[in-house]
């Protein structure tokens, strides 16, 4: 669709409005849905309409669903019904043996990194985080000396954020919202200053994560893009 043409622009506005309102039906809706997935201008126009109309939806009276809805969701997703002993993330929901293998692997990689980094780190008390994707392949290794307010990140895969994008590092406190540790500068090795010595800054942080964000980092203070890598904070002290 040539959107530079004013008539086309009007036509798109009208279609997006009908889409958001729900009066666009049948094949026209299916077609619009398809275009929307591949065309950012169309997607943004539809989103604008959803936003304009959303303010109206806010008044629909809430109706608490039957408990069987939640039970069905939990069952269909294969989650655990009770949350008391529930795993918090995929890295904790892995089977024991797989978890064991991952932990050993991470520790081994961590150790080899320590050796690479040399005696300065080895001699001190340090923290190591091996950040890996769901395939368990390490992508980044974060290291810090316990008493120093600095994280050093080393890229160990070919993974790069792509143009106009950046990797952002997050601390994931148990049960709390992610806290940004900053955007990871491009390159094989990046340094992220912390506000406090790493041992204190990460004292109650079991896990770090990396998300894909717009260049310059998340505009909202929370991860906005997909989470690509996560890793447990291993303390060598």
């Amino acid at each position, binding site marked *: 669709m040539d959107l530079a043409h004013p008539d086309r622009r009007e036509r798109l506005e009208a279609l997006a409005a009908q889409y958001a309102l*729900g009066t666009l039906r049948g094949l026209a*809706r299916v077609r619009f849905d398809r275009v929307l997935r591949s065309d950012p201008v169309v997607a943004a126009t539809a989103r604008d309409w959803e936003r304009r109309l959303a303010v109206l939806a806010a008044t629909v*009276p809430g109706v*608490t669903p039957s408990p069987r*809805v939640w039970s069905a969701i939990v069952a269909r997703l294969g989650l655990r019904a009770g949350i008391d002993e529930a*795993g918090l993330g995929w890295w904790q929901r892995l089977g024991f043996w797989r978890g064991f293998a991952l932990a050993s692997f991470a520790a081994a990689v961590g150790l080899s990194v320590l050796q690479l980094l040399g005696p300065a780190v080895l001699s001190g008390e340090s923290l190591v985080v091996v950040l890996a994707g769901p395939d368990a392949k390490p992508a980044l290794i974060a290291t810090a000396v316990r008493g120093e307010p600095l994280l050093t990140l080393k890229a160990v895969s070919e993974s790069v954020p792509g143009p106009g994008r950046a990797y952002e590092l997050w601390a994931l406190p148990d049960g709390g919202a992610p806290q940004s540790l900053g955007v990871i500068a491009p390159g094989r090795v990046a340094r992220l200053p912390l506000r406090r010595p790493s041992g204190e800054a990460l004292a109650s942080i079991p896990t770090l994560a990396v998300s894909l964000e717009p260049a310059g980092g998340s505009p909202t203070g*929370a991860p906005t893009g997909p989470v690509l890598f996560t890793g447990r904070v291993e303390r060598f002290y």
Partner: protein
Amino acid sequence: MPVADPGERSARLAALLARVALADQRAFEALYGQTSAHLHGVALRIVRDPAAAEEILQEAYISVWHHAGTYDAAKSQPITWLTSIVRNRCLDQLRRRDLDTVTLTTDDDAPAFDIADEGPTPPELLLEGAEASSVRACVETLEPAARQAIALAFFQGLSHAELAAHLRQPLGTIKSWVRRGLVRLRQCLDQTGYSR
């Protein structure tokens, strides 16, 4: 639902979605607790069938679990994003139902379940929504006929043909009411600087 500061609520829901993207089951449960009644209300209004509304709710949250990572806080409010997922599933369901139905329902066929009989009517809801967000003036600039048609389409998922049957007007008239009403609503909302 207690009226919390909308900005604070959005930030809280966005933080939950971020954790759901990390497969955090507790965050998922909290998100469900804070949003399911509203989304269920939306689904019930549109599909007007309790069993179908429950099924849609299930599918919507399953989709949220798998796709929370694609939520972009820079582009939409969490509740708008969630509502769109539910509304789109409702409309798909209605579309499938349209295909299964040989003849259009007329006013003589009493629907088996009509949520609209309980609580405010769609046009009342439209005005309430406007009041809640200081865009009431914009809704009031709509001609009553357009206001009613837009409200019925939005809150009950009526198609153009169903609106025509319900409001006893030719299809062409309905389409032009809706089209002009939406254009007017947009102009007014954009002028008042209404933004997310």
